[in-house]
């Protein structure tokens, strides 16, 4: 099983748009949008992120998570804190720019990169050199 991505944004539409964009170059990679609050307002949802991660892990995927803004990152870090210890090797946060990071991570997953490679691509550090 390859690596899957969870895209976390304050906006439902932004998360879905990033998934749409990343899918174009990575049609075999499972991509999940976790945008907005539980009731669809601007914000992020612990439960939406947690449900996406749980579902992808149950299907046997390692999971890389990308976020749009600092409070989305805090929500993701809270979810990671609640994971069982043996799960934490399989679920990682990729701290990069959302759009370019998601595309780079998705392509890396598409060509068979492992979680380390996908997370490194998601950080898209080379973009800042």
């Amino acid at each position, binding site marked *: 099983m390859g690596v899957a991505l969870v895209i976390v944004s*304050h906006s439902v539409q932004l998360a879905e748009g990033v998934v749409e964009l990343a899918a174009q170059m990575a049609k075999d990679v499972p991509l999940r949008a976790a945008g*907005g*609050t*539980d009731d669809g*307002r*601007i*914000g*992020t*949802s*612990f*439960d939406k992120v947690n449900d996406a991660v749980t579902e992808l892990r149950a299907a046997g995927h390692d999971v890389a998570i990308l976020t749009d*803004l*600092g*409070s989305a990152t*805090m*929500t993701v*870090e*809270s979810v990671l*804190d609640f994971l069982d210890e043996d799960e934490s090797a399989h679920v990682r946060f990729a701290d990069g720019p959302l759009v370019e990071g998601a595309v780079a991570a998705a392509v890396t997953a598409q060509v068979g990169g492992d979680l380390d490679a996908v997370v490194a691509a998601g950080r898209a550090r080379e973009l800042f050199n």
Partner: protein
Amino acid sequence: MSDTLSFAWAEAWIRDAQAVLAEHRMELIDLDRAIGDGDHGENMDRGFKAVVAKLDEGGIADVQGVLKVVASTLMSKVGGAAGPLYGTAFLRAAKACDGDVDSSGVVALIEGALDGIVSRGKATTGEKTMVDAWTPALEAAKAAAEGGATPAATLRAAADAAAKGAEATIPLQATKGRASYLGERSIGHQDPGATSTAYILGAAADAAEA
């Protein structure tokens, strides 16, 4: 006033906090509109109403149980930064609790909350965040407890210090979170997270004095 705070105090605290945050909803919205995204008042009101609904279901019997319910509910019901920040704060506060709470227990609770906020938000003092209310609250609580204050007086000292700390964020320039994008324009506004912290600790003191 007794020497320890029990479940009844914890429940009264959170119910008081909900009432106070509902009362100040517009004020927190206005503070957050000035330097943020304007959702803090709405989010705190919504979050604490959800917490009180959980408390109404019953089945909780100790301070730790109350704080854990606050943590998990805020974490999932508050969409903004306050969710993970206060959620982690109450979770660490819960972990610091064992049975009823004496004056040193109050200190441990506030210390747990501050540690949680710092580890989640990676802010330090002087950055115009809720850390600027929790940090003086912890210092004041420590001083009060070491001086032999009751738990209620320890909480009052913490609440007063948090309120002063919140007020002292007005001249600060934000260097953390989205308010930092405003640069110097963040100066002259009181930080909404520090303000809600002062209300929450004020409610804790009110409930202990009742």
